[in-house]
């Protein structure tokens, strides 16, 4: 209980919020890292998954990439990239490692979503004379969107969580508060940093849930 109350007083002291290593700065870095990586991974994963799902091929590839991806420690990828010439280019090693980490869940969910579209509906649409493009944009994508959104939610939450690892390799973000706490042997600061990241992750999860609730009925997968 004592640790929690000292962590709370660390969090509420205004001196810890301002300045270069302050909470506000670290929070901004964390948000920036998460948003950039999520956008990049969506740009890479979603078109590939949607096209593979539309033509109905390469499913085993998507699922296998996902499984192999889980076996590769993000921390190791980060450090490996850091030691290559890329390591001198600021945030790039972190961004690449995080994008590699976020692509598999996006890819699998979007592919599965496209494949699970009711084949009777697809045949009906074809029977109505829809072209491949119309079928993709007016039938398959809307019906697959609940699973695509779920994939994005999983990826976003895991990105927030994993972006803390950047700090182990000297990068920015909320993880820095934790590693700095370890170096100072200050348990309250470590716990305070951990709480910040956990709350951030839960906040992102909540935002996605609210977003899905507010979305139009077809995007929620509702059949009402």
């Amino acid at each position, binding site marked *: 209980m004592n640790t929690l109350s000292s962590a709370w007083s660390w969090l509420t002291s205004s001196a810890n919020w301002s300045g270069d290593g302050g909470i506000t700065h670290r929070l901004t870095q964390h948000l920036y890292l998460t948003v950039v990586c999520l956008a990049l991974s969506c740009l890479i994963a979603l078109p590939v998954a949607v096209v593979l799902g539309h033509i109905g091929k390469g499913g085993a590839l998507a699922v296998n990439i996902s499984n192999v991806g889980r076996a*590769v*420690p993000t921390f190791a990828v980060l*450090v490996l990239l850091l030691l290559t010439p890329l390591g001198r280019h600021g945030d790039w090693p972190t961004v690449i490692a995080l994008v590699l980490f976020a692509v598999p869940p996006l890819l699998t969910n979007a592919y599965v979503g496209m494949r699970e579209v009711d084949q009777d509906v697809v045949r009906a649409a074809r029977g109505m004379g829809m072209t491949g493009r119309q079928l993709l944009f007016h039938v398959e994508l809307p019906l697959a969107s609940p699973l695509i959104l779920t994939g994005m939610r999983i990826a976003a939450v895991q990105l927030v969580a994993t972006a803390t690892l950047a700090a*182990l390799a000297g990068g920015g973000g909320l993880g820095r508060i934790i590693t700095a706490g370890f170096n100072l042997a200050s348990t309250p600061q470590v716990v305070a*940093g*951990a709480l910040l990241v956990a709350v951030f992750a839960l906040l992102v999860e909540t935002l996605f849930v609210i977003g899905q609730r507010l979305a139009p009925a077809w995007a929620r997968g509702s059949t009402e």
Partner: protein
Amino acid sequence: MTAPPHDCLARNEWICGAYLSTRRSILWDAVLQHLQLTAVSVLVGLVLAVPLAVAARRWRWAAGPVLGVTTVLYTIPSLAMFSLLLPVYGLSASLVIAGLVLYSLTLLVRNILAGLRAVPEETRQAARGMGYGPIRLLLAVELPLSLPAAMAGLRIATVSAVSLVTVGAIVGYGGLGNLIYSGMNSFFKAQVLTASVLCVLIAVAADLVLLGVQRLLTPWTRV
């Protein structure tokens, strides 16, 4: 101009045979620690997950809280998890194990529960009709039939645990992660690459071993 040294260690190359031969014992110790941390945490996770999943299956009111709590635990980042547990365990291997146990719980509980729920009602009724009590029904019918789903969860949990152990380097108990961490600080390329590759190899090997165990345990799924 000095000639480049003949030793690949001195040239700091990514792939270096001399590193493998001179640091064999360090690598071996790290691999052992890695395996130990993974095995203990997944086993503890399994011991906790089975009763939780059985409880969630048996009593409807238990399912919500069990799934809710394990999902929230999974959302907490690994680095943050280790730090939150720091006041309880201090800088120790138990800290890393406790964090990994909490992670594997989510995957294990979900998959075991899915397996239990997929047992056909007819099968359970047939067993009851043959005079099976609730305990015998669970041990002899429901748990074996949920094995394929449970094993799928166990494989994912194990592979994830192997990769998460590396983060334990922050408290000095990260197995191969320790070598990656110290290699990063000293720009020791061969050490970082070797330890990373070993991590992936351990994950793949563990997955294959569990796949073999699954085939042995569920002969009825093979025709």
